[in-house]
């Protein structure tokens, strides 16, 4: 059967065994559902997961299992690899694939599944050569439908073929429709659309359909239709959990002969969201460039190189290209997707988003619709929200700086990656992102940073403050004020805390109206009342030389409070977002 397995693998273009990591629990759940068909009607289902989560590979393995290890259910697999603009072409292709798979399954001959592309006439000959009278009848009926001008009838007949074949043999069938979201790109003028006709075919309890495709698109355009809502079960397929993800990463490194340290891999694993595609992109680059992944910063840097100009960047760039009709639209798409308020967790009305970005409302609507259809953005009730995809966020961060900020590639690397080698500002900030208890997720976002009290460490804090402040609509001069105030607060800690642990604890919190920065040390308490107010020159004499730090902080920020803490000093500084952002009104 090994040759048979190979035929199925080639026919379905399955990922090699050693590059597909254990998805046994998911596969088993779906198979159990299918195998109960004889006793219990099964419900059609959609495998929903983040981009590149591997739902197609899971579906292909379900097909293989059904083909090889059981006889009571006819397995069918159809991949929407091609977008047909003519219903006749689609009908012939669909019919051909199904009939061929039927013959292969009934004859236990997987070699019939190859070659992948086959002419309709060849299928007709295969049917003629077989002795199955029912199949002859089905072919004749199909040819009759082809000769009829009614394209809707032809399509309806074609989609019922699995049920007809099941009725004449095992009594049950399972149809796997891969990349089903591409159905929405098949628009023809003569005959009903596939989205109108498929729900009827999926209604048969003896022939459940399993769909894969872009989750957001399926959800938005198919599963919420009147004819499908509540009738198709959604099965969530997440990335690999951390244990399996680590095993996968180590196994992939071994497969590509790339040196790796388990501890380093575990440290950086959160970046990949359990998605093998991201892991493999990084590992392939490491192999290509001779990089050993035995340090966490080597993994991080290779990941960022991938996000900047590797396969990951190419993948997301291609998606953007497909959504955007031209270069200006692509730039606008990046501006929309990178809008700081969306990243701070706000949902924005489409009109407000267009206004903020000075975009024509109709153009913004078309763009948002395209981005939402590709699953790069969520849009509902006229409100726009980001989708949870940290890798895409990293890609956007780079794309936005490069295309909109017009920052050179070297500069981006210097700013975002190389600068974090000694003290991983960006990494640590992101990892420590937390939601405020009791608040809706992301309406209040906090970042923690712990810095040693060493020379110029305040610059690291300042860089972090810039990164946080850039997430909202602070103008450049406010970012400068925040940066300076934080530098002064850090210097205050160095000079006055006498802290034994030698650390500064900084927390940045963004909510709907302000940025709060808390700077804390575990040293001796600092009494601001005892600090003499420095004098400015009035007629004669130069200004005081020292004691300006606190005075400056008070001048640069909107609120400055020293809070009581049992040990050390805690300074809270607040900067409100500019009034014209409208955030204060939202918060109220």
């Amino acid at each position, binding site marked *: 059967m090994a040759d048979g397995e190979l035929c199925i693998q080639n026919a379905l273009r399955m990922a090699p065994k050693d590059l597909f990591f254990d998805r046994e629990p998911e596969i088993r759940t779906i198979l159990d559902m299918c195998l109960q068909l004889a006793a219990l009607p099964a419900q059609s289902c959609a495998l929903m997961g983040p981009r590149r989560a591997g739902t197609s590979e899971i579906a292909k393995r379900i097909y293989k299992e059904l083909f090889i290890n059981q006889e009571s259910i006819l397995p069918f697999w159809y991949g929407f690899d091609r977008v047909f603009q003519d219903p006749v072409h689609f009908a012939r292709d669909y019919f051909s694939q199904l009939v061929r798979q039927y013959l292969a399954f009934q004859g236990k001959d997987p070699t019939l599944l190859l070659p992948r592309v086959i002419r309709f006439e060849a299928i007709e000959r295969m049917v003629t050569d077989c002795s199955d009278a029912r199949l002859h009848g089905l072919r004749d009926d199909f040819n009759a439908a082809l000769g009829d001008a009614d394209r809707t009838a032809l399509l309806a007949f074609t989609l019922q073929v699995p049920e007809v074949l099941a009725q004449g043999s095992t009594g049950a069938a399972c149809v796997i429709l891969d990349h089903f979201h591409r159905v929405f790109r098949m628009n023809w003028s003569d005959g009903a659309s596939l989205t109108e006709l498929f729900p009827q075919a999926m209604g048969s309890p003896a022939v459940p359909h399993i769909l894969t495709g872009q989750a957001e698109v399926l959800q938005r355009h198919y599963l919420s239709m009147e004819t499908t809502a509540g009738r198709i079960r959604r099965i969530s397929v997440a990335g690999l959990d951390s244990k399996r993800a680590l095993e996968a990463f180590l196994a992939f490194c071994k497969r590509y002969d790339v040196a790796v340290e388990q501890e380093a891999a575990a440290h950086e694993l959160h970046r990949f969201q359990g998605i093998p595609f991201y892991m493999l992109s990084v590992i392939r680059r490491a192999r290509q460039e001779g990089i050993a992944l035995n340090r966490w910063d080597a993994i991080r840097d290779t990941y960022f190189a991938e996000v900047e100009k590797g396969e990951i960047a190419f993948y997301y760039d291609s998606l953007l290209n497909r959504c955007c009709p031209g270069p200006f639209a692509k730039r606008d798409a990046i501006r929309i997707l990178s809008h700081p308020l969306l990243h701070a967790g706000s949902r924005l009305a489409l009109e407000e988003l267009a206004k903020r970005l000075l975009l024509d409302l109709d153009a913004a609507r078309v763009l948002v619709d395209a981005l939402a259809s590709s699953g790069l953005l969520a849009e509902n009730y006229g409100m726009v929200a980001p989708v949870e995809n940290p890798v895409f966020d990293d890609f956007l961060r780079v794309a936005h700086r490069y295309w909109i900020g017009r920052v050179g590639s070297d500069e981006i690397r210097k700013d975002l990656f190389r600068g974090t080698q000694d003290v991983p500002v960006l990494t640590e900030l992101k990892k420590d992102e937390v939601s405020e208890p009791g608040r809706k997720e992301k309406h209040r976002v906090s970042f923690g940073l712990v810095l040693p009290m060493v*020379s*110029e460490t*305040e*610059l690291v804090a*300042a860089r972090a403050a810039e990164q946080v402040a850039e997430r909202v609509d602070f103008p450049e*001069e406010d970012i*400068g*004020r925040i*940066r*300076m105030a934080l*530098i*002064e607060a850090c*210097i205050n800690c160095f000079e006055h805390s006498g802290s034994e642990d030698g650390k500064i604890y900084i927390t940045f919190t963004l909510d709907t109206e302000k940025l709060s920065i808390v700077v804390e040390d575990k040293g001796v308490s600092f009494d601001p009342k005892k600090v003499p107010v*420095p004098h*400015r*020159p009035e007629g004669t004499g*130069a*200004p*005081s*030389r*020292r004691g*300006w*730090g606190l005075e*400056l902080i008070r*001048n*640069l920020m909107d609120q400055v409070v020293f809070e009581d803490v049992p040990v050390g000093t805690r300074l809270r500084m607040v900067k409100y977002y500019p009034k014209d952002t409208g955030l204060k009104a939202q918060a109220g």
Partner: protein
Amino acid sequence: MGQFQMDVKFDRDFVVFYTNGYINDLGGEKIERTCEDILREGYRKVIVNFSESPIINSIGISILIGLIDRVKRAKGSVCFTNLTLNNTEVFEFMGLTQYAPVFPNEEEAVRFTMGHA
């Protein structure tokens, strides 16, 4: 931001300091030491160009206050150019601009300095 560095351009009647990098206590002291050397050589007019120093902390500024004081006592003049908007704001807040005028570019600073002959 790398190690603080400074270049000095000598003209017949004045000098221009080109600071490069973060001006904290170390950077400020380097400016101060250089200024002392310049005064010893007989120069009395100093222009400080901050175009490559976007970040100046309060300790750095306090050293600049000392520098202004020293040059003034030597009957000289100091002026600043190419400060960022934020740093200009801070210099004004601390009252430095009453003693050392701030100019958007070096040409205007030179014109001012030469007018003070």
